């Protein structure tokens, strides 16, 4: 194992299986701080399971995952919310609260963290401006296009200034042009804010021109070996 002090995520021989026997098997990779890495593979290959095991929605049964040097297997269940507050998450289906405005959705992580309302207002406006949808702050998510919804989702993930963003097929529901725009945005944010991003996708043509490191997964097994 290499020195993991400058790594935000280290997967060391990790396996996690569901009741039906599918899952991920012996996955090992590292993600450096401020690094943008793609997790590539067909649908059902285990990409989401890898991401879910990081935010502890799935519990591993072999190996270990280090997050900022901390072994996630040793984190107690009641400490999971605190862990999740440090990680930004972006989903294919956006996971926005449909009965709230864009502003409310983006403010949610800060409200959960108990931040003061003045700080929340400032931070949310800043994030909405950064992702280019400040003018939509009072809109309901249902009134937005897919690309705009994903931008809300990105703003929500970034608003708490996380050190890691897990993006689970964020372009899966978007047309190629908008998908490209979203990856551009994530790349730009990764460069400017210094947040590490682990993004899963099944769309190789989308990521190929970007010259980024990618980890390939198929049927729960790692094809390209990182460590």
């Amino acid at each position, binding site marked *: 194992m290499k020195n993991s002090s400058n790594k935000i995520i280290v997967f060391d021989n990790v396996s996690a299986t569901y009741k039906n026997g599918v899952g991920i098997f012996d996955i090992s990779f590292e993600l450096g701080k401020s690094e943008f890495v793609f997790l590539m593979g067909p649908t059902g290959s285990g990409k989401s399971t890898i991401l879910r095991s990081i*935010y502890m*929605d799935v519990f591993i049964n072999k190996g270990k995952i280090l997050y900022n040097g901390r072994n996630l297997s040793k984190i107690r269940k*009641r400490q999971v*919310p*605190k*862990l*999740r*507050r*440090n990680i930004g*998450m972006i989903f294919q289906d956006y*996971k*926005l*609260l449909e*009965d709230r405005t864009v502003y409310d959705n983006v403010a*949610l*992580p800060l*409200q*959960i*963290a*108990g*931040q*003061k*309302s003045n700080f*929340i207002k400032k931070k949310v406006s800043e994030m909405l401006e950064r992702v280019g949808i400040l003018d939509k702050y009072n809109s309901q998510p249902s009134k937005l296009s897919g690309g705009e919804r994903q931008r809300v989702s990105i703003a*929500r993930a970034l608003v708490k200034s996380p050190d890691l963003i897990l993006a689970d097929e964020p372009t899966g529901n978007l047309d190629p042009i908008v998908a490209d725009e979203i990856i551009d945005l994530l790349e730009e944010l990764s460069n400017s804010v210094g947040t590490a991003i682990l993004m899963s996708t099944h769309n190789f043509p989308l990521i190929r021109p970007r010259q980024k490191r990618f980890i390939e997964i198929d049927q729960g097994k790692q094809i390209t070996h990182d460590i």
Partner: protein
Amino acid sequence: MISKIKFIIAESFRGFFYAWTPALLSCITIGISLFVITISFFSYFLFITYTDTVTKDYELNVFFNESTSLENAEKSFNEILSLPSIKNGEFINKKKSAKKFKTYFSSNIEDLLGENPLPYSAEFNISQNNRNLDSLLIISENLKKINTVDIVKYDQEILIRFENIINKLMTTFSIIGIAIVVISIILVSNTTRLMIHSKKESINILSLLGATNLFIRVPFLIEGIIQGLFGACMSIVSLYFLKILLEYIFVPLVLVNDYNFQLIILLNLGLGVIFGLIGSKRAVSKYLS
């Protein structure tokens, strides 16, 4: 912290108005429950007061043996009077008994029989705690064991009837009360369950964003309390109109004074909060484990 509390309270109200139909149904059920419970409670309270008035002279008549001397009869009277189950009593000597005879039969017993054959007797009032049939039977049996006592009498039939009525009413009130409370709690619980079900996706999102279990649960609990308070207000308003109606119909017999009505308000608000909280807690514990 304050912004967190504000958010949780805002969430609770949002939840209440988000699914206002089941929430309103819960409020109405709690309102009806509290209305019936209050009416039952006060009816029972009034009935107890009434029976206390009727039975305030829970009386035992003790007749001493004909052969008992005045001295022994008075001694036995004092002995009985010292019993804790006896509140007070009056010794009836021959003169008083003759006077009573005259009151009842409008004739002088000595004129009729040439002498007064009536025995010494005594009337005893029973202490408050022993004004029930079981105690009365025990006291009566104990008095009969005294040598000088010949007969112990009390108006058993009326007492038995009163006691039976009280017991039946208590049982009925208890059953109705418990049934209503259970129904309210189940309805509040079901409403909260519906809310939880309809918000499953939101709950999942909150959890993914790092919300603790407490953060997710508390708005549902507060929502239950809000339902309880709304229900209590409905009940209080209905009871107020009932009070006005009763005062209008029974002008000289005002049943509920202002002090009692303040108690009713407190009782309704307190019970409303408790019902709402128990109902929502039940659903939250069951469906948000």
